[in-house]
């Protein structure tokens, strides 16, 4: 029972990190079909934002709370810049956006290496996140719980935006039928820009959260981007629901595999499971029903 529970918690914890990394990606990929390889580097930017802020704000707790919104804005602005300069020119060529944004990712990584140095740096965790909470005879690290809560908060906030605001209505309209939305007076260009801002902003928040788990370096984004994409593939294009279910299922699966084999074999097994899953549902868990031939 204890083993099962600790497995479950390890999986949920891994899943919450995956979810934070994939949430913004699911939004931009779902809306525009754009594969943003620089998404991981936006996470890195968020992480370095937290690192820079702690030099100005001595209290680690305050600096973390300030870093979350600032990280959102930093990631969002980077995304906005990318969308306006490059992606808007080529959104009819989704596969090529992948390569272009990979080029952007290379540049951003090198920039981080030149500015902050190649070695990893540490961000101090606030005192109120040190230690663990005893639950059912288990000690759950507070940082992990905080990230889980943060992931849930991000999902709730994003779904509120999508359901309640006019931006959300425009986003949903554009995802469902871009041409029809445009005809109905929705400026899909402006919607795309805002979507990219929000999606990349979530990446910045994810980056801030990652500073709680370990030291951060220029390759931070590369470590997460593939997993984040897998979450989006399994989740399917569409609502956030798919990403949430996919992130937690993959997290729990990987934790289980790691428990019974090794970490490296777990990754391979996970890949096999995903390919097998796509045999059953090629469009992912949640897909918008269409009559297209695809």
């Amino acid at each position, binding site marked *: 029972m204890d083993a099962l529970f600790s497995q479950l918690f390890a999986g949920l914890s891994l899943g919450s990190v995956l979810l934070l990394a994939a949430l913004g990606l699911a939004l931009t990929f779902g809306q525009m079909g754009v594969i943003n390889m620089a998404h991981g580097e936006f996470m890195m930017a968020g992480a370095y934002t937290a690192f820079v802020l702690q030099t100005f704000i001595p209290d680690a707790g305050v600096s973390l709370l300030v870093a979350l919104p600032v990280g959102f804005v930093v990631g969002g602005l980077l995304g906005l810049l990318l969308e306006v300069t490059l992606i808007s020119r080529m959104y*009819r060529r989704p596969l090529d956006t992948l390569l*272009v944004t*990979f080029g952007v990712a290379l540049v951003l990584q090198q920039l981080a290496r030149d500015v902050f140095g190649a070695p990893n740096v540490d961000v101090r965790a606030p005192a109120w996140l040190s230690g663990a909470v005893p639950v059912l005879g288990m000690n759950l690290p507070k940082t992990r719980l905080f990230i889980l809560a943060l992931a849930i908060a991000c999902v709730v906030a994003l779904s509120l935006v999508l359901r309640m605001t006019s931006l959300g209505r425009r986003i949903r309209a554009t995802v469902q039928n871009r041409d029809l939305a445009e005809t109905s007076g929705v400026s899909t260009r402006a919607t795309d820009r805002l979507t990219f801002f929000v999606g990349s902003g979530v990446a910045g928040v994810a980056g801030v959260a990652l500073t709680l788990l370990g030291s951060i370096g220029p390759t931070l984004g590369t470590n997460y981007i593939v997993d984040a994409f897998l979450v989006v*593939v399994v989740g399917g294009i569409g609502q956030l629901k798919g990403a949430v279910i996919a992130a937690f299922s993959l997290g729990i699966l990987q934790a289980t595999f790691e428990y019974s084999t090794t970490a490296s074999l777990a990754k391979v097994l996970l890949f096999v499971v995903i390919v097998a899953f796509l045999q059953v549902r090629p469009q992912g868990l949640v897909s918008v029903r269409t009559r297209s031939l695809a």
Partner: protein
Amino acid sequence: MSAPEVTAAPAGAWWRRPAVRVWGGVAVAAVVLFGLAPALLSDFRLNLLAKFLCLAMVAVGIGLAWGRGGMLVLGQGVFFGIGGYLMAMHMKLSDAGPGGVPDFMLLYGDGVVPGWWEPLRSPVVTVLAILVLPAAIAALLGLAVFRRRVRGAYFAILSQALAAAFAILLVGQQKVTGGTNGLNGFRSFFGFDLADPVNKRMLYFIAAGVLIAMVVVVRLLMVSRYGELLVAVRDQENRVRFLGYDPANVKVVAYAVAACFAGIGGALFAPVVGIISPADVGVIPSIGFLVGVAIGGRATLLGPVLGAVAVSWAETGLSEQFPSFWTYFQGALFILVVAFLPQGFASLGGLWRRRRGASGDARDQPAPATGTPDEAPAHDAGTASTAGRHA
């Protein structure tokens, strides 16, 4: 498109005919690779060129799968790595002698050669495995995903995830794969001493010959009925389906051939460079293979080869002196070429011809939609009629 040689050749000089241009290009390449390069380059430079040729082999395959077939293959490092590791394992075993144990296994492991290594003591098995294993894995994965019509971005991401998983697996199984260090310190290649400069030259000639053979194979594939089907699947997959073909099979063949080429490239890379490690097969090098192809011109025959060699050459030259500058340069190349010159530098010639044709002699202007396979632009979302504008 049934006879591209005829439809594409504009009325005019014989040397503009695609077949003449292609075979002429191959002949020139053969003269340069077999005659000029060995005569002009030092042994060190020649060895470097052999390395670039191995990378160019991967590029030829990517040109087929991505340029002609429209499949963005982000994980070619896997097949490159399988070929490289198979060859490296064979060399390690033969260095250790009959029944011997490779040195690194004594260092990290328990000094017992695992069972699945044993068959690779035989040179014949090794060569067969290099030729068959990458293609078989690609065919299996391809059948699994293409049959279920997983394509576009989804396929790209899956192939990338495969590369990530493969690199992680190699690092994790240090006892049998050498871990992060990979396999290195080979002394002989099928019984020939690798320290001997004569044998190093021989390796170069093998690499050059194999590369030219690959280009010829791709050319023959492209002018065949299969080649036309492949381009048709890229441009209008559903129409091909309605005509009674299974696009999945067409794609699987191109993917498997590309994987086979990558495997051979890796197998020659290991003895030429003297090391194969997870750093050569992960996500970043896998995407790196695409740079040369994109820059040279993904849908052309010789573009990927020239692009791959040029990029590797530039990387070696520049990154030694300015390591950080090279990464910026590589990133900028990616951004600028893909965003603004999607067909690579190979399309510059066509652009120039078209511009000259538009201002002067109208006969010179090639019909946009009936380009030869060598000039047919790869466009992921457009239709054939927009080909002229894309290029």
